[in-house]
């Protein structure tokens, strides 16, 4: 088991290396004049020349890559051209709002998805199962900004229950979370349903039933506990992606987080900021994947790791 965890860590390190290579290529090797790209379209020639020198863009690519890694290791993601501040500072300012939003969105997915999963599993192949499944499918087929605006229109404008976007208290979180929950719940519903149906077939469930346990007791005690394992795995991976996944949500609800930061950086071609957010979100994905895999070793007794 220890060897499995060590191997898994090694794999994660390799992936981190891969991420650094990809971001380096995108920022430095693809553009014909990275200095111009990094400085932005409005920068003066002097600024471009300064950046070119500062980044050593006249040196061979591998030297540049080494310098890039060196900067990353010192948590130096470069300077934003637009804000004239270190990218790390900008990201630091926006991290908490985005994390709050992502967490709320995640909770909404669970709150909607898991009960529906239990419901459809218990009513499998009945009409209500089909209806709920199709509703869930409609959910994942919706464009986040579109659903968000529709909700804003009805629940913020026509019937003004919730604020029309922006940051603030819990009330500001509800509509964005609901939007994300509706579009993301189907994955949980489907996963939980199939894993519950799988567990319901197992012997120990039959034994419990034969012993006369009530149906809801069987579900709660025996089925759910086992069926939730894959859901937890998926949930852990899902939350890793969420920090990068709430861009559309932030833009729609004018939630001033990392997504808006990246979005604004695009129109200004503020490459250091864009690559900084990409790098950070990828790191978090790797981290959460790793955590899930390691937790899994302890949770799931069925798998042995050689």
């Amino acid at each position, binding site marked *: 088991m220890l060897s499995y965890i060590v191997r898994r860590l090694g794999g994660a390190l390799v992936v981190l290396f891969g991420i650094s290579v990809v971001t380096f290529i995108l920022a430095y090797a693809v553009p014909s004049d990275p200095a111009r790209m990094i400085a932005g379209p409005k920068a003066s020639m002097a600024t471009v020349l300064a950046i070119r020198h500062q980044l050593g863009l006249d040196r061979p690519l591998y030297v540049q890559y080494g310098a890039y890694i060196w900067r990353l290791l010192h948590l130096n993601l470069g300077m934003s051209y637009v804000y004239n501040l270190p990218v790390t500072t900008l990201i630091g300012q926006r991290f908490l709002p985005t994390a709050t939003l992502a967490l709320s969105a995640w909770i909404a997915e669970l709150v909607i998805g898991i009960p529906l999963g239990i419901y459809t599993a218990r009513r499998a192949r009945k009409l209500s199962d089909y209806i709920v499944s199709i509703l869930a499918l409609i959910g994942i087929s919706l464009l986040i900004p*579109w659903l968000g605006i529709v909700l804003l229109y009805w629940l913020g404008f026509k019937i003004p229950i919730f604020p029309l976007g922006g940051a603030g208290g819990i009330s500001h979180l509800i509509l964005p979370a609901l939007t994300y929950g509706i579009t993301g719940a189907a994955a949980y519903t489907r996963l939980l349903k199939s894993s519950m149906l799988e567990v319901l077939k197992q012997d120990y469930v039959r034994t419990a039933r034969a012993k006369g346990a009530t149906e809801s007791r069987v579900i709660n005690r025996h089925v759910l506990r086992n069926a939730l394992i894959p859901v937890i795995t998926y949930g852990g991976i899902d939350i890793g992606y969420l920090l990068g996944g709430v861009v559309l949500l932030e833009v729609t609800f004018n939630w001033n987080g990392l997504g808006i930061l990246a979005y604004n950086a695009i129109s200004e071609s503020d490459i250091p900021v864009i690559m900084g957010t990409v790098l950070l979100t990828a790191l978090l994905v790797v981290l959460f994947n790793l955590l899930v895999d390691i937790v899994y070793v302890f949770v799931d007794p069925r798998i042995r790791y050689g």
Partner: protein
Amino acid sequence: MSVQNASAAIGGASKSQKKSRGALFWKSVRKFPMVYVGGLIVFLLVICAVFAPVLALHNPITQYQNGLHMDGTPVGPSKFFPFGADDVGRDVYSRLIYGSRVSLIVGFVATAISLLIGTTLGLISGYFGGFIDTVIMRITDTILAFPFLLFALALVTILGSSLTNVLIAIGILGWGVMARVVRGQVLSVKEFEYVQAARALGASTPRILFRVILPNILGPIIVLATLAVSQNILVEAGLSFLGVGVQPPTPSWGNMIYAGVQDYQFAPWLMVYPGVALLLAVLGFNLLGDGLRDILDPRNATH
């Protein structure tokens, strides 16, 4: 004993087995009727895109004066503009019809790119195993570590906003899942004796990969591809919404929704129609992919 008699004695294919694979497939389709609905939607969508010039009432980028009120606000649905006009007086209905082209092109072409990369790498990874497998899988993990939309956003920004670049960005980001699934399938199929038989008969490695193994794992690949089309249509719309996709005045459902957002309080048709069109298109592919998955699931097999 003559040969004829011998084969008669051995018996023809038994009755229960006589049904062809195709017949079995259609029998399962009946059990999952939503596949029809999905298929129908996809079919209509393709018709829309192919016959857009016929189906559209007006030129999608012409700005009509009678599309705007005196105060400059767009006119609502009418005989001339079935779905209303947009903020510069263009016909929303005709733009919607033409917009299906962008969605379908992105859906199909980007998926094809991912499919090509993912299937090839998955086949190689699963068949050869060992060091090659490890390398390919770590590359796959790397690609999968980037949140799709944000990374596509960064990529399109660096490459420049255009339909081609959107296709490339979505295509080269989307192969990770395919490679993983294909690899898993290859791992199980390559142990079958018919693969060993092909090797024993001297089949080359490309032949084994693409002619022997690939046709046998096509089912899951088709399911995956169908679901990827729906996902890619949504990502394109998302990118267009963020202003980095197809550039105006070319209509795409994403940039139509974006244009409609500003005016949603007094001209809701601007975003309602493209939103519903997008929903239907994505839902169509999702229903199709989901249904095919159920049909191909051996646990649901009809025998």
